[in-house]
């Protein structure tokens, strides 16, 4: 096993996939710079820089995929998908269904997501619940380098649209560009195990919609994804020390959601907290509760999510996003009796 950073792992998997599949290309704003190594290796025909025209190039990626190519279209920040939402909402997600399952759309939409570095609520949103709301779209959010590379391959080989979200606290080049900008006077709560880790010699895809149980426990299930997985692992250590045996599930996929894995865990523990950096209302956290209730499971439930627009002020931002303290407090409140 070798070690690699989160962003390097994605690049390495992309490089492998681009060598093997000539129909695979990257398109998006500034990709000659953001993906400079791939640009230099594969040339401008396969790493295509676009104008700031998200609605046009995301929409074009959808039909390029329908015409037999494998586009990875990049939207710099997932917040900017608002500009191109029609391509996903009404086209990418609908064609397979409307065509009587005769025409599939194998497009990957790659974007950065998440907060924790002071850019406020127009550049730090998660939005995966909003995207996963639409039938026909898959959404994947890796939490560590090995998953980042393997899930990129899973997204590429899927025969339907997949939104691939890359958290800015994990991807060093993004955090350098939008967070520190070369400064040594700022610091961020970057989870080490997410930023860098062991990766396989050769990338193989992970199965679609399968969660990963990272830590076993008998009293409480923490269900999460992305950076929040690492907050959960840290909280689980504290909770264990308090006598609350805590299980941590990394969902990896928002959609399709691995309800079987969640069900199995909560059947054992009888208590679940969903830790979701996305908005609390009408999202992933409520969905998990509904899916468990539909299976007639009796369980205690709570959630730690982002509840408002993410503020610019760094202290307030840290309180707004899920953090270890909020998880521990919620668990203790829930299990105090």
């Amino acid at each position, binding site marked *: 096993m070798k070690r690699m950073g989160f962003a390097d792992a994605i690049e390495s998997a992309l490089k492998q996939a*681009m*060598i093997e599949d000539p129909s695979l290309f990257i398109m998006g*704003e*500034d990709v*000659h*710079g953001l993906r*400079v*190594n*791939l*640009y*230099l*290796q*594969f*040339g*401008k*025909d*396969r790493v295509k*820089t*676009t*104008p*700031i*025209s*998200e*609605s*046009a190039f995301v929409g074009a990626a959808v039909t390029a995929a329908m015409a037999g190519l494998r586009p990875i279209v990049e939207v710099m920040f997932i*917040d*900017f998908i*608002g*500009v191109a939402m029609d391509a996903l909402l009404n086209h990418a997600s609908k064609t397979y269904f409307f065509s009587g399952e005769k025409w599939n759309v194998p497009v990957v939409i790659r974007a950065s997501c998440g907060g924790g*570095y*002071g*850019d*406020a*609520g*127009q*550049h730090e949103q998660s939005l995966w619940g909003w995207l996963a709301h639409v039938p026909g779209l898959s959404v994947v959010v890796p939490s560590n380098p090995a998953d980042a590379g393997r899930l990129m391959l899973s997204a590429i080989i899927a025969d339907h649209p997949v939104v691939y979200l890359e958290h800015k606290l994990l991807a060093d080049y993004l955090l*350098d*560009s*939008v*967070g*520190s*900008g*070369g*400064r040594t*006077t*700022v610091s961020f709560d970057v989870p080490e195990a997410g930023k860098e880790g062991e990766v396989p010699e050769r990338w193989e895809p992970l199965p679609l919609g399968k969660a990963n149980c990272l830590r076993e426990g008998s009293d409480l299930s923490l269900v999460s994804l992305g950076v929040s997985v690492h907050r959960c692992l840290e909280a689980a250590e504290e909770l264990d020390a308090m006598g609350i045996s805590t299980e941590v599930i990394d969902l990896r996929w928002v959609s399709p959601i691995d309800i079987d894995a969640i069900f199995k865990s909560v059947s054992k523990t009888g208590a679940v907290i969903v830790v979701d950096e996305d908005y609390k209302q009408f999202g992933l956290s409520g969905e998990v509760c509904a899916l468990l209730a539909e299976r007639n499971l009796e369980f205690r439930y709570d959630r730690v999510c982002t509840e408002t*627009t993410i*503020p*610019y*002020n*760094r*202290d*307030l931002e840290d309180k707004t996003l899920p953090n270890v303290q909020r998880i521990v407090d919620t668990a203790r409140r829930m299990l105090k009796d």
Partner: protein
Amino acid sequence: MAEMVEWQLYELMLRSRRFEEAVTELWEEGKIFGEMHLGTGEEAIIAGIVSQLIPGDAIATDHRSTPPFIMRGIDPVALMLEFLGHPKGLCSGMGGHMHLFSKEHLLASSGIVGSSGPSATGFALASKYKKTNNIAVAFFGEGAMNQGMMLESLNLASTMKLPVLFVCKDNNWAITTRSSDVTGGTLLERAKGFGIEGVEVDGLDAKAVWKTANEMISSIRGKKSKPLFMHARCVHRAGHLLGDSLIRPERAPVSPLLKSVLSRKGARIDKKIGGLGNVLSMISSVKAQLKDSQDPLKILRKKLASQEEQLSKIESSIQIEIDNTMKTTMEIYQQEGSL
């Protein structure tokens, strides 16, 4: 009279520049968080236009909002405290530099490229609806001219005959993409295609912007309102954002780039070398913008250089102003550091 205008412009531009230099210091100290997009290099365009607005006129800005907010008369202490994320900031520390709002000044910013088009159009719709004789200004870069919502706004404002001044600040860089590589046709022709007359002006020449804007605004304002389009060249002296990797030399290491070029897989070697050339020329042409001859403030100062006494009077009074702003700001910041 003409000279009075130049002095007024110089004062506005200098105030904005000094303020943004202070912003840079606080950003480098880590007291300002996240990204910071400065408007240094755009001051001549902003000053030439904002200096002619009257109360009730609206401005929709992009992510480079500091110069328009300062020049429109927003309290600099409130603005600086906002950048520091302080509860006494202009937006209570909630917005930060990309999300600044002043309801009383009808000033709204956004970090979404192209959004100042629809925003200014809506402000203009409101003034026409209320018959107020006010206009709205949209500030945006040439990169935004490829955004659908901007082009749709040109059409909407044109067909509704709304009093909007669309101001395209063109530095020919959409972050790290050369705009001429990703823009078809010319921008003036685009505006014309929507029935909007456009004027080209040297955005490094404050007086030229002022004169052009003066004529444009007087035909936008009034009963026979209509939108107009200004295309003004500029530079971004601090790059796309503070800490821009194209300006930071250590961020453009050539050896890893060569590794990709020399890798045996991928595109043909001639294409790879072409790609490397593109990347290196991108870095050098961004740096070329930093020359003094491309600085609108220095250009204007040169024109006023014969009146040394007046210049130093203005410069020292602006310096005192900025010093006082920073003193007050830091007193409040240190008293009540966080929420």
